[in-house]
């Protein structure tokens, strides 16, 4: 299995000496879901930000499809076939859902020539088949949608972009349980398209169940990693170990 994205000893942080990530290395395999569970809230989103160029690593490399992308400007990400679904909203609240969905795709089309204009329409139709509930919301302002509907637009937007790598940050936080189920349906939909996914979520069981490979992030360092089978034992005991509770 080849890695589409490799973090190579990445160190990053927001001030001179506080490193939120220390010497962090991980691989995201092509076409598979890689899970990142960070039990103590130290650095999961920072990993995403370091990959996307919102935070320039102080040391180490971000290698994507064999190219060094360390410190790439965020607006160039989509041209490399990377997409990021952040925890916070990336929607334009005063634009319609259609505008929200089309803008990144049109930017990409203008910047790189692909997809061609005719293909944009096709993709849009195909997207509506996967997300039929959006059809009646296309003309609504994105800011007027409920939290769950906004999440759906985020996923639909990602789906339209057909990235080779999709970074998904805490997709289910603050959503009602019924919508959480839908969110994970969408992630499976992405996986079925052979998209490589780096998934961060606080629901450890679900991440382990869905992922092909799992990394445990603790206080900025990878403290465990493995395949789902490696986490088959008593999860409670493992969580205690990750948390550093040894009694």
């Amino acid at each position, binding site marked *: 299995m080849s890695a589409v994205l490799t973090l190579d000893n990445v160190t990053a942080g*927001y001030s001179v000496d506080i490193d939120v990530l220390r010497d962090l290395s991980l691989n995201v395999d092509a076409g598979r879901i890689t899970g990142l569970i960070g039990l103590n809230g130290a650095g999961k989103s920072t990993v995403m930000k370091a990959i996307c160029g919102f935070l320039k690593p102080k040391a180490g490399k971000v290698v994507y499809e064999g190219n060094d992308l360390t410190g790439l400007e965020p607006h160039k990400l989509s041209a490399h076939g990377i997409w990021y679904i952040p925890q916070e909203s990336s929607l334009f609240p005063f634009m319609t859902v259609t505008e929200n969905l089309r803008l990144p795709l049109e930017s990409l089309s203008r910047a790189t020539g692909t997809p061609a204009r005719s293909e944009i329409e096709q993709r849009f139709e195909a997207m509506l088949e996967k997300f039929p509930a959006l059809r009646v919301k296309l003309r609504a302002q994105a800011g007027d949608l409920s939290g769950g509907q906004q999440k759906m637009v985020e996923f639909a937007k990602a789906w339209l972009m057909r990235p080779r790598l999709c970074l998904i940050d805490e997709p289910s*936080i603050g959503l009602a349980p019924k919508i959480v189920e839908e969110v994970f349906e969408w992630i499976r939909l992405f996986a079925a398209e052979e998209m490589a996914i780096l998934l961060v979520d606080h629901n450890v069981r679900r991440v382990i169940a869905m992922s092909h490979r799992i990394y445990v992030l603790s206080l900025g360092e990878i403290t465990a990693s493995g395949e789902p089978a490696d986490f088959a034992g008593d*999860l409670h005991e493992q969580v205690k170990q990750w948390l550093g*509770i040894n*009694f």
Partner: protein
Amino acid sequence: MTLLSVRGVSKRFGGLVAVNNVSFDVAAGELVGLIGPNGSGKTTLLNILSGLADPDGGEILLDNVPCQGLTPERLAHRGVMRMFQLTRVFRRMNVIDNLLVAGRALGLGADEALARAHALISELRLDVIRHLDAGQLSGGQMKLLEFGVCFMVPPRIALLDEPFAAVHPTMKEIMGGFIRSRHEQGQTFILVSHDMPVVVELCPRAVCMNAGAVIIDATTREVLNDPRVIEAYLGGQAA
């Protein structure tokens, strides 16, 4: 003797219940760990306790006197001191002046404030950088400085939000030692931290929150062995 009493405090943001009917007491001289997974409402609770957010319901008693909804400055004068997770210092003032602000605002005379500032500076090992502007300090040094600001006048209760997050081990040790020694002198704390080994080491008692509510309030060992707590960290039920 109960120093701080939180009774049925709630806070919602839009549809999200950030703090849901939280109640617990802190006795004078206690060091209580407040733990819970991300988004469980710890920081919102600290914001309410320190006057940065108004609760939608419930009551907070400090020395048996209600104090919910007071401004942060009033609460500071009542002895509630808050340390922020994202450090807040006066960036264009030097380390000593940063400390003096709190000392003078809380009623110390000029000489006494200066003496205490120097004492804190040597206790927190900030001597070398005491004349630098706070904006020039490293992240860890800023944390130590903010620590000092909270203890210029020993507060009735200190609310510490993630003081150890991603800090260099030496500084972590300085802060840990500081907390321990103040605790021994009878200082009351609420300590929010993700660093469980430190919580185990420092706090005899812990309160665990999940989804805005207190799920268990017991000795730290009991709390960390409780399956509900582990389940909360597994993210089983967040909504």
